[in-house]
């Protein structure tokens, strides 16, 4: 179906437009499309009118597919020549399905109709405006929804970020904690190992050198040890940092640098004038009383961290204690050795009568005990030789022993036989020190007689080698131990001694073995003495003493002191006694 209008004037155009709208409505074209069609048609027709001439509008609908359901508007120029030159204007809109071609009368062209249609046209416009508003609302709400969604997505992203950041932080914290625990373990292990190394040494000079090898380079670049007593100081007159002096005076560690140390328990000081660019940590070496020195350290890098500083201070504290203990031990040992040496007498020389003594303290404990030997002259020229053993060990026994030695020498000045002297010592000891006892043997050599007088109190028997190589144990019943709560008179015994004889006095440490008692040991001593020749004993009594001791001590546990005194009457004693002064010296 086709409807056609010819348009020359604006009124024609208006009528065509009105009819198009009505037809479109009749064919069920939806409002928006209808308005589009009429607006586009009006715009084109206005253009045509300005050009002038005649124009033709065709509205076509088809009833058969594929073009059914479409309304097509075509505007062509009335001038055929123009129509050929220019393609026609057209627009197609969809109709409602099955809309019939109901009769639509063409609109009249009178002004009333046109005015009425004009008013109706605004209705269409209002429809379009409503639709537009709807669309705008829809867009707005979609936009809002989109915004919300975006916000939600952003929030989700933010949460994920936070979660992953949180997890990273957790890992980092865990790693940090593990690293710190590692570092702490490393420090503690170092502290334990270093303490073991430091306390293992008893020599304080060694401790000083060990400090240096332990700490450099990991914990310090430089280590200096300032000991107040000078000691083994390599640079005794070197200037000391002021901070070290403060550390010494206050007993508190000091940190001298151009910045604050932030080290716990450490006071800050201005940098050292000697080396202002190097931070110094000065830690006093503590003892039970005043510090014995100051440890001066420079850091391995720019500075220490707090934990390393704490460890260094603790290490220094332990070192101070170790050094203090070492010094005390050395001090006591020095005293003990000095005392011991003072008590070991120089043996008097007599022409024709040689003496050789050996003293070996027990191997553990202080080097001092209760064994002693002595030899001295009485006013009548007799030579008194003594071997003794105060029961007990250590300083107490040693002090008692020295008192007995002196008492004996004093008593001997009054004269008296060995037995008498021992008896007096017995009374003296019992009176003076009721809970200490002693054993002893005294042997007296007469200058002009070939006899030996001896007495023993609770002590292993002396052993005598005669020039024929025989060895006799002088075991006549001894008196009891000195100091025991018993009244006793210790008896004297005499025995002949000819030139070339050797008397051995000794303490039980030489002969006693735990499992066996003393008798097997005494037999071994006798046997060993029997292997010597008089000539050997004449020539070198000291060497003989060593050679005698050696096999006897091979199986000893050395938990008791060992003392030996050899008295040898030279084979040519008589000659030597008459010999000129060259041999005698007092």
């Amino acid at each position: 179906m086709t409807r056609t209008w010819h348009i020359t004037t604006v009124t024609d155009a208006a009528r065509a437009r009105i009819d198009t709208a009505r037809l479109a409505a009749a064919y069920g074209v939806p409002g928006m499309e209808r308005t589009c069609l009429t607006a586009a048609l009006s715009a084109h027709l206005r253009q045509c009118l300005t050009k002038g001439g005649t124009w033709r509008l065709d509205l076509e609908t088809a009833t058969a597919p594929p073009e059914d359901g479409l309304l097509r508007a075509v505007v062509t120029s009335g001038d055929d020549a123009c129509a050929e030159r220019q393609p026609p204007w057209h627009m197609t809109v969809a109709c409602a399905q099955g809309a019939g071609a109901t009769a639509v009368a063409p609109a009249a062209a009178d002004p009333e109709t046109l005015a009425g249609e004009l008013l109706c046209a605004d209705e269409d416009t209002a429809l379009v405006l409503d639709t537009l508003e709807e669309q705008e609302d829809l867009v707005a709400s979609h936009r809002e929804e989109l915004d919300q969604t975006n916000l939600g997505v952003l929030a989700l992203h933010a949460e994920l970020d936070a979660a992953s950041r949180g997890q990273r932080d957790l890992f980092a914290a865990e790693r940090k904690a593990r690293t710190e625990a590692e570092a702490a373990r490393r420090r503690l292990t170092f502290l334990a190992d270093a303490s073991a190394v430091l306390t293992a040494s008893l020599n304080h000079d060694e401790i000083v050198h060990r400090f240096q090898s332990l700490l450099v380079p990991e914990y310090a670049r430089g280590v200096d040890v300032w000991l107040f007593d000078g000691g083994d100081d390599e640079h005794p007159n070197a200037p000391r940092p002021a901070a070290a002096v403060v550390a010494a005076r206050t007993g508190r560690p000091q940190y001298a640098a151009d910045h604050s140390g932030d080290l716990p328990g450490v006071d800050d000081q201005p940098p050292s004038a000697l080396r202002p660019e190097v931070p110094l940590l000065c830690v006093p070496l503590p003892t039970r009383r005043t510090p014995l020195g100051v440890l001066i350290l420079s850091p391995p890098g720019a500075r220490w961290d707090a934990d390393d500083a704490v460890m260094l201070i603790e290490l220094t504290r332990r070192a101070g204690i170790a050094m203090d203990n070492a010094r005390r031990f050395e001090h006591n040992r020095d005293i003990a050795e000095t005392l011991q040496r003072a008590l070991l007498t120089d043996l008097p020389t007599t022409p024709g009568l040689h003496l050789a003594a050996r003293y070996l303290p027990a191997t553990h404990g202080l080097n001092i005990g209760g064994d002693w030997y002595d030899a001295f002259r009485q006013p009548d020229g007799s030579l008194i030789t003594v071997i003794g053993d105060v029961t007990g060990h250590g300083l107490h026994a040693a002090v008692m022993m020295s008192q007995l030695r002196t008492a004996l020498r004093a008593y001997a000045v009054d004269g008296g036989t060995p037995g008498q002297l021992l008896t007096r010592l017995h009374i003296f000891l019992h009176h003076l020190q009721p809970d200490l006892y002693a054993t002893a043997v005294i042997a007296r050599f007469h200058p002009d007689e070939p006899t030996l007088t001896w007495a023993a109190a609770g002590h292993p028997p002396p052993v005598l080698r005669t020039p024929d190589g025989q060895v006799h144990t002088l075991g006549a019943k001894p008196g009891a131990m000195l100091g025991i709560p018993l009244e006793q008179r210790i008896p004297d015994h005499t025995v002949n001694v000819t030139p070339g004889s050797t008397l051995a006095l000794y303490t039980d440490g030489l002969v006693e073995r735990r499992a066996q008692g003393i008798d097997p040991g005494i037999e071994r001593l006798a046997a060993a003495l029997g292997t010597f020749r008089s000539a050997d004993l004449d020539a070198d009594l000291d060497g003989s003493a060593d050679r005698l001791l050696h096999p006897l001590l091979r199986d000893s546990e050395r938990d008791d002191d060992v003392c030996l005194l050899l008295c040898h009457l030279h084979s040519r004693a008589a000659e030597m006694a008459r010999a000129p002064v060259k041999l005698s010296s007092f």
Partner: protein
Amino acid sequence: MSMAQNPLSVEVTLPREDVVLLTVEGHLDIDTATGLQHHLANQFQHGRHHFLLDLSAVPFMDSSGMNIIVRAYQQTRELEGSVHIIAPAPAVRRILDLTGVSITVPLSDSVEDALALVDKQQGHST
């Protein structure tokens, strides 16, 4: 320290009210002697004055052990008490004889013999 090598054990029984029997086992030397000393002091404080020392299981005794025995003897003597040594090993007996301790502190072969000596002494005092 030889403390762990040769430990000392002391078993304390009371055969009579004021008589204590200490049965000692192990080495009696500088490391272990104080253990025995404590037992003696403890019993002394509890009023026992007669001490029987069974040393049959003591293979070795040095001057520390001897000191303690003689000191105990001195203390008990002041209170009319006594110390007896029972069945010492030969090596220990040799030392007790050599030092003359066996003169002052009687040796017995058995606990019964020692108790008989205590009875005799107590008989004398009353």
